[in-house]
């Protein structure tokens, strides 16, 4: 089984209220050194067999059409990942 990992982030200029909420909580736990938090999304798409170039191309298209909204988000990366990498710590 192969996996494709897709990372999506809000564009830098778009307000991230969830990230701000996390940023507000960090100092309460004693983490005073972090000045900002941005929260993104990771998708892991699985296929039977190898992650071929065709699979990666399809994943890129899915990332642009469904998994992200180009008005507010950027697709940061679309990459193949080994099975062990997903399950390992």
């Amino acid at each position, binding site marked *: 089984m192969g996996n494709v990992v897709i990372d999506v982030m809000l564009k830098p200029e778009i307000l991230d*209220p969830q990230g701000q909420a996390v940023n507000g909580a960090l100092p309460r736990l004693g983490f005073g050194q972090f000045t900002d938090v941005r929260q993104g999304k990771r998708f892991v798409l699985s296929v039977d067999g190898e992650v071929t170039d065709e699979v990666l191309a399809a994943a890129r298209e899915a990332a642009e059409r469904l998994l992200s909204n180009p*008005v507010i988000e950027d697709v940061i990366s679309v990459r193949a990942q080994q099975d062990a990498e997903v399950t390992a710590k």
Partner: protein
Amino acid sequence: MKIGVVTFPGSLDDRDAARAVRAVGAEPVSLWHGDADLRGVDAVILPGGFSYGDYLRCGAIARFAPVMGEIIDRAKGGLPVLGVCNGFQILTESHLLPGALIRNDHRKFNCIDTRLRVENAQTAWTSDYATGQEITIVLKNGEGGFVADQRTLDELEGEGRVVFRYVVPEGGRNPNGSYRDIAGIANERGNVVGLMPHPEHCVEEGYGPSTDGLGFFTSVLKQVVSA
């Protein structure tokens, strides 16, 4: 005169939308998200709610429902389409309207009466209002902040496609962090309108702050009759 109201999994306001259609003497027609069939309707309402649980992004999954393929095609041909709240989110995800709706800047859910200024009284859904008129209808959303890049915002304003703005008191802020206080917008042709506040909840005395929402539905009636 038939006005379709789409029900997606998680739609909440489809019944109120149908009731508002009935209130102005038109016939509401239920449209099912899974059927690529508009059943001969003259206009379509995408109601509020939480289609697909707001998973992924609000409206992102509903946008690919079979019924939406038909609505997108017909909207491009001039079919009047109104998107309220989640319906507005679906219209932006469908790229029938520009921009996007993101989480309210203050991170709280709104459930309030809100005052709007009508900026464009020439769309299919606002012709019974006057430009500059102020109306009060209800607003209830967690992700109602309208955002777009500066160029898009300038285009919307330059082309008169900002249809509603929140009336913000001096020194105050709008209810959800929307850029330029934008509450609702239209496409170039003016047949597709989306807004976050809910006109369909404000069509009957005793159920909300006003009956100011009626104008949406009387407007589209005239539009269809004259078309």
